[in-house]
C-alpha cells in the first residue's frame, strides 16, 4: 500500500519541473519547498505514515511544552475521519456525480468483473467445503470494490495539551516557517530540527489545502490567542488567515492544534496505537487520551493511558559544547555569538571541561602567535584551524551526564508495569558515557510475561524518550538482543517466553542512521556495549528471581519427579537379581557370592524379595529425602512462598467505639 501510493505522488511533483526547464536557469529553493519535495526525510512518505508522523510530532511537542514548565502533561489527541462529501463541503466543493464511468481508474470493465465474480464464487465454494468438513472457517474479508487512487481519506487531527502555550506574536513563525525553532540549543530534546509541526502543515497544504488552527494561552494571560494560518511554501513565510486574541474565561492554559490532512487509518492504526502505548511506557507521569472518531461507531477507538506517578524527570539543561565534538564551523559560530572578548575567557566559558589553567596550557600549546589575552576578533582563519586541530588531538575529560534527563529507572519500571502487566520486570540505569564528545545514558528494562505480549523477543526502543517504531531490524538494540545476549544462560527461553526488552537512550545528540530518524546504527561500539551491558544487568536481576521461582516449583514437584523413576530403577535392578538368582541355582555355584549376597539372591529366588519390595524401600527413601530437603528449603527461604506485603486498613470513621481485650501477650481490639 505504501509503495503503491508514494511513487504516484512524487511523479506528479517531479514531472512538472523538467518540462519547464528548457534552458538551465539558476533557481533558489526555500527550505519549505525542499521539505515539501522530500517529505520522506521528515517521515511523510505516504498518507498513512503522514498521519502517524503528524500525531507523533504533535504529541511530542505537547510533552515538551508541558515538561518545560514542570507541569504533569495531559495530552488529548483526537483523530476524526472525514468522509469525502463532508470534506468537499468543508472546502466548498459541490459533489459531482460521475457521468463518464469509464474515465475513472476504479472503473471495472466487463472482463474484470467476470474475473472477480468467478474468484469470489470459488472462494465461497472453498469456504463451504471447509465448513462442511468442520474446519475452522476463516473469515474472508468482505470483498471490497477496487479502491482507486482518487479515493483518499481525510482526517482531522486535534491535539490539546496543558503545556506552556505560545506567545501570541511567536505563533506565526513557530508554525509558518520551516527550520525555525526553540529547541536548537545543545541539549537533550525530543524534536530537533524545528520541522515537526510545520511538516504537518505542509502536508495538509499539499493534500487538502486546508489551513492549520491554533489556540493557545499562556500563564497569567487573560486572553487566548487564536490563529488560522497556512504556509507560503515558496517564500517559507506564514500566510495568516486569522490572528486574534479571544476571551479566555476559564483561564485555560495550553495549546490546541487542529489540522486536516490526508491519511490512512486502516493501515497505520496499529502503528499509531503502538506509538501511544510505548509513549505511555516511557512517560508514565503523563496522561494521554486517544480518540478515533468516525461515522461508523464500531470503528471508534478510545483509549486512556492514565497517569501512574507524579515524579517527573528533571528538565534537561542546556549545556556547552565539548571541545572534542566541535567542528570548524561551530567554532566560528561560537566566536561570533560569544560575549567574551579574549581567547582565554572564550575557551574557559564556552566549552565544558576546560578550566582556566587548562585553557592557559592549551593556548601555550597552540603556538607562539597565540596569547591568552588576544582578542577573539583578531583570530585569523588559519589560527582557527589550529585551535580545531588541537581540540581534536588534546585529551579532555569526558562530559558528564548532568545535562541529560533520562526517564529514570523508577519511571521506566512503572511504565512497563502499567502498560504490560508483566510477571517479572527488572530495570537498570547505566551511568553516563561518551560518544564523540556527546554524553549518553542507556537505561534498560527486561520483562517476562504480561498481557498483549507476543512470545519471543518484543523490543521497545526509545531515543530521547520517544519511541522508535520503524526500521527495527538494523537497530543497535535489536541486534544486541538477538545476537549478543545468551538468553538461555539467564534461564530465559528466547522463543517461548514472552520477553519485553525496553531500551531508552538519551543524549545531547542521538546518532540516528538514515533520514527518518528511526533507528540507531549498530556500528557505534560505545553505544552497542552500553546497551549490551544494561540488558545483561537486567537479565542478571531476573535470573535470580527466575531461579527462585524454579526452585519453588521444583520444591512442589520434587517428590513426584523422583517417584516417577522408581519403577524404572527397581525394575532394572530386580531383573538383574532375578537372572542372577536363576543362573546361580542352575549352576549351583553357591560360593560364587558372599554370604550376604547369597542370602539376597536366595530371597529373590524364593520371591521373598520382589520388585515391589525394592520399590517400597526406595519410595520410603525418596520420601525421607524429600522431607529433609523441604525442611532445608523452608529454613532457608522462610515458610511463606510469596513475600508478604503489609496492608494498612483505615478505620471507616475516626470515632469508633472500641473494646480492648487484654492478655499478657497481645491486645485484641474490637470495633463496633
Amino acid at each position, binding site marked *: 500500500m505504501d509503495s503503491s501510493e508514494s511513487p504516484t505522488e512524487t511523479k506528479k511533483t517531479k514531472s512538472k519541473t523538467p518540462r519547464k526547464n528548457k534552458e538551465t536557469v539558476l533557481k533558489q529553493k526555500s527550505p519549505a519547498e525542499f521539505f515539501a519535495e522530500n517529505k520522506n526525510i521528515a517521515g511523510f512518505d505516504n498518507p498513512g505514515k503522514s498521519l502517524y508522523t503528524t500525531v507523533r510530532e504533535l504529541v511530542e511537542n505537547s510533552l515538551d511544552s508541558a515538561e518545560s514548565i514542570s507541569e504533569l502533561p495531559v495530552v488529548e489527541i483526537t483523530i476524526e475521519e472525514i468522509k469525502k462529501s463532508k470534506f468537499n463541503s468543508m472546502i466548498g466543493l459541490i459533489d459531482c456525480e460521475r457521468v463518464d464511468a469509464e474515465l475513472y481508474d476504479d472503473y471495472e470493465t466487463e472482463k474484470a468483473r467476470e474475473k472477480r465474480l468467478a474468484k469470489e464464487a470459488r472462494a465461497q465454494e472453498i469456504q463451504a467445503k471447509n465448513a462442511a468438513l468442520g474446519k475452522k472457517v476463516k473469515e474472508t474479508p468482505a470483498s471490497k470494490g477496487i479502491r482507486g487512487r482518487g479515493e483518499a481519506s481525510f482526517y482531522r487531527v486535534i491535539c490539546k495539551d496543558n503545556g506552556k502555550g505560545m506567545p501570541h506574536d511567536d505563533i506565526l513563525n513557530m508554525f509558518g516557517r520551516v527550520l525555525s525553532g526553540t529547541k536548537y540549543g545543545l541539549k537533550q530534546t525530543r524534536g530537533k530540527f524545528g520541522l515537526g509541526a510545520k511538516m504537518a502543515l505542509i502536508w495538509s497544504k499539499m493534500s487538502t489545502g486546508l489551513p492549520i488552527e491554533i489556540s493557545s494561552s499562556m500563564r497569567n494571560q487573560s486572553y487566548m490567542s487564536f490563529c488560522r494560518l497556512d504556509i507560503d511554501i515558496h517564500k517559507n513565510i506564514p500566510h495568516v488567515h486569522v490572528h486574534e486574541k479571544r476571551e479566555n474565561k476559564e483561564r485555560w492554559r495550553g495549546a490546541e492544534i487542529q489540522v486536516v490532512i490526508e491519511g490512512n487509518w486502516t493501515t497505520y492504526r496499529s502503528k499509531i496505537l503502538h506509538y501511544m502505548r510505548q509513549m505511555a511506557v516511557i512517560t508514565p507521569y503523563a496522561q494521554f487520551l486517544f480518540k478515533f472518531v468516525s461515522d461508523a461507531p464500531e470503528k471508534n477507538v478510545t483509549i486512556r493511558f492514565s497517569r501512574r506517578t507524579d515524579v517527573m524527570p528533571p528538565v534537561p539543561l542546556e549545556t556547552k559544547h565539548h571541545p572534542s565534538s566541535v567542528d570548524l564551523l561551530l567554532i566560528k559560530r561560537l566566536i561570533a555569538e560569544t560575549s567574551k572578548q579574549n581567547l582565554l575567557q572564550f575557551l574557559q566559558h564556552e566549552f565544558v571541561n576546560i578550566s582556566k589553567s587548562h585553557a592557559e596550557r592549551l593556548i601555550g600549546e597552540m603556538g607562539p602567535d597565540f596569547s591568552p589575552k588576544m582578542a577573539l576578533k583578531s583570530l585569523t582563519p588559519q589560527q582557527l584551524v589550529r585551535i580545531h586541530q588541537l581540540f581534536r588531538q588534546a585529551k579532555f575529560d569526558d562530559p558528564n551526564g548532568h545535562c541529560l534527563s533520562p526517564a529514570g529507572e523508577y519511571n521506566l519500571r512503572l511504565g512497563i508495569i502499567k502498560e504490560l502487566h508483566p510477571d517479572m520486570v527488572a530495570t537498570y540505569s547505566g551511568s553516563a558515557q561518551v560518544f564523540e564528545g556527546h554524553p549518553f545514558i542507556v537505561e534498560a528494562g527486561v520483562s517476562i510475561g504480561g498481557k498483549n505480549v507476543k512470545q519471543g523477543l518484543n523490543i521497545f526502543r526509545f531515543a530521547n524518550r520517544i519511541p522508535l517504531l520503524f526500521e527495527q531490524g538494523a537497530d543497535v538494540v535489536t541486534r544486541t538482543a538477538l545476537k549478543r545476549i545468551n538468553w538461555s544462560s539467564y534461564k530465559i527461553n528466547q522463543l517461548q517466553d514472552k520477553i519485553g526488552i525496553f531500551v531508552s537512550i538519551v543524549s545531547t545528540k542521538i546518532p540516528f542512521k538514515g533520514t527518518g530518524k528511526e533507528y540507531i546504527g549498530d556500528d557505534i561500539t560505545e553505544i552497542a556495549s552500553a546497551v549490551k551491558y544494561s540488558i545483561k544487568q537486567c537479565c542478571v536481576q531476573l535470573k535470580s528471581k527466575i531461579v527462585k521461582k524454579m526452585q519453588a516449583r*521444583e520444591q512442589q514437584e*520434587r517428590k513426584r*519427579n*523422583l517417584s516417577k*523413576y522408581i519403577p*524404572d*530403577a*527397581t*525394575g*532394572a*535392578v530386580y*531383573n*538383574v*537379581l532375578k*537372572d*542372577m538368582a536363576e*543362573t546361580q541355582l542352575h549352576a549351583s555355584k553357591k560360593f560364587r*557370592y558372599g554370604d*550376604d*549376597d547369597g542370602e*539376597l539372591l536366595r530371597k529373590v529366588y524364593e520371591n521373598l*524379595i520382589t520388585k515391589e*519390595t*525394592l520399590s517400597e*524401600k*526406595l519410595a*520410603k*527413601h*525418596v520420601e*525421607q*529425602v*524429600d522431607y529433609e530437603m523441604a525442611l532445608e528449603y523452608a529454613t532457608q527461604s522462610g515458610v511463606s512462598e510469596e513475600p508478604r506485603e503489609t496492608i494498612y486498613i483505615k478505620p471507616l470513621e475516626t470515632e469508633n467505639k472500641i473494646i480492648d481485650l487484654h492478655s499478657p501477650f497481645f491486645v485484641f481490639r474490637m470495633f463496633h
Partner: protein
Amino acid sequence: MTESITGSVLITVLFSIRSSAQILSPSRVKISVVIHFHFTPTLCPITAHLPSMAESSKKRRRTNTDDLPFKNKLKPDSTILQTLKDFSTSSSSSSSSSKTLTLQDLSLPFSCREVSDLSLSSVQSNIESLVLRIAHSILSGNGFAFDVPSRAATNQFYVPELDRIVLKDKSSLRPFANISTVRKSAITARILQLVHQLCIKGIHVTKRDLFYTDVKLFQDQIQSDTVLDDVSCMLGCTRSSLNVVAAEKGVVVGRLIFSDNGDMIDCTKMGMGGKAIPPNIDRVGDMQSDALFILLVEKDAAYMRLAEDRFYNRFPCIIVTAKGQPDVATRLFLKKMKMELNLPVLALVDSDPYGLKILSVYGCGSKNMSYDSANLTTPDIKWLGVRPSDLDKYKIPEQCRLPMTEQDIKTGKDMLEEDFVKKNPGWVEELTLMVKTKQKAEIQALSTFGFQYLSEVYLPLKLQQKDWL
C-alpha cells in the same frame, strides 16, 4: 628374476577373476591363498607391473588430461613408487624400533583412568557385584547412587609423551534421590540391566537397538549413548566389550585382505563402494597387505573418486574413510591396520578447522572417549592435504575457496592453543596461515581442474614431493 614371474602370475589370476562374470567362492579362497603366499615375503614385486595392470582402463581415463595444471611436473609413476617405498620402509623401521609407551611407563603427577578389553564373563560379574551392592543399599533404606567417572573437559589431559588425551580419575556421585540426577541414575540402572542381558546371551546389538528397548525412558538416543559411555567407563572396560556397537559407518578399499568373522575379504574386489568396516573389531583378523601406505580420507566424495579410479592399483595403498567424524569401529580398524601392517598413515582432509579436528580425533582421541584412548588412537598420522598452503601452491581459483565464518575462525584460533597441534610446528604454521587468510576449501575444490584432478595429479604430485607434515 623369480620374483617378477610370481608377480605376473598373480596379475593374470586377478584379471581372470575380474573378467569372469561369476565368482565362485571356493576359487576366491584359493586365490587369496595365492596372494597370501606371494605378498608376505616381500612388498616390491607387484609394484613394478602395476602400471601395466591399469592399462585397460587407462585409455578410457587419460584421454585429455595432459593439459591439467602441474601435470608436467609429475615424474613417471615408477619414480614416485620408489620414493614411497623408501618412505614406507623407513617409517616401518622407525616405528618398530621404538616401543609404544603406555600410561604405566610414565610417572604422571596424577592418576589416570584407562579401560581395557574385558571378557564377557568379567563384564557380567562386574555388573552383578555392582547391582548387588545397589540392592543392599536400597533394602537398607539408603536409596542408591552410582559413582560415575567424570568425562568433563576439565577432567581430560593431553599427554605429549603418548600423543593422546587421557582421562583423569575424578568422578561424581549420581544419587537417585536427587532431582538433577534421578533421570540419569534410572537410565544407568536400565542400561546396566540391558548390558547384563547381552552378556548372558552373548550377542551384539547396536546402540540404536539399545535405545529402542526403552524409548519411553531414554527419550532420545543421545541420552542412552551418553550413559552407555558412562557405564563402560564405570565398569572399566571398552565399549566394545559391552557388546554394544555402532552402526557401520566407515568403509575401506584397496590392497588389504582380512578375515571378518571367518570370511576372507579382499578389499581390491569390493566394487566401488568398498567394504564396510565391521562394527566389532574382535571379528577382524589375519590382515595382509602389499600396500605402501594407508590413505585416510575425510569425505565420502573424495573416497569414491579414488575408489572408482582404482587409485590403489596405481600406488598400492589402503583407502579408508569414516565419512566425517570417525566412529569407534573405524578408529579401532585403523589402529589395528597400523599396528599389524606397520604402514605409514597419510590423511586427506578438508582445509578447514574441522578437517584438522577430525585428524586429531584419529590421532589423539576424542574427549568423549578419552577413557579408551589407548585403543582408539593411531599415532603418527601425516597431514597430506588439502592444506591451507596448497590453495596457493596449486592455484585454486578464488571462487572455489570459501570465506571462513566467525565460528570457523574461532575454532581455528582455539585449535592453535591445543597441545596436539602445538607439538607439530608444521601444523601450527598451516593453521596460522588458514586463520590469517580466512579462507577454507574442501577437497572438492580440486575438482575445479577436472573431476579426476585429485587422483591424476594432486595426490601423485604430493606423494612424489613427499609433501606431508
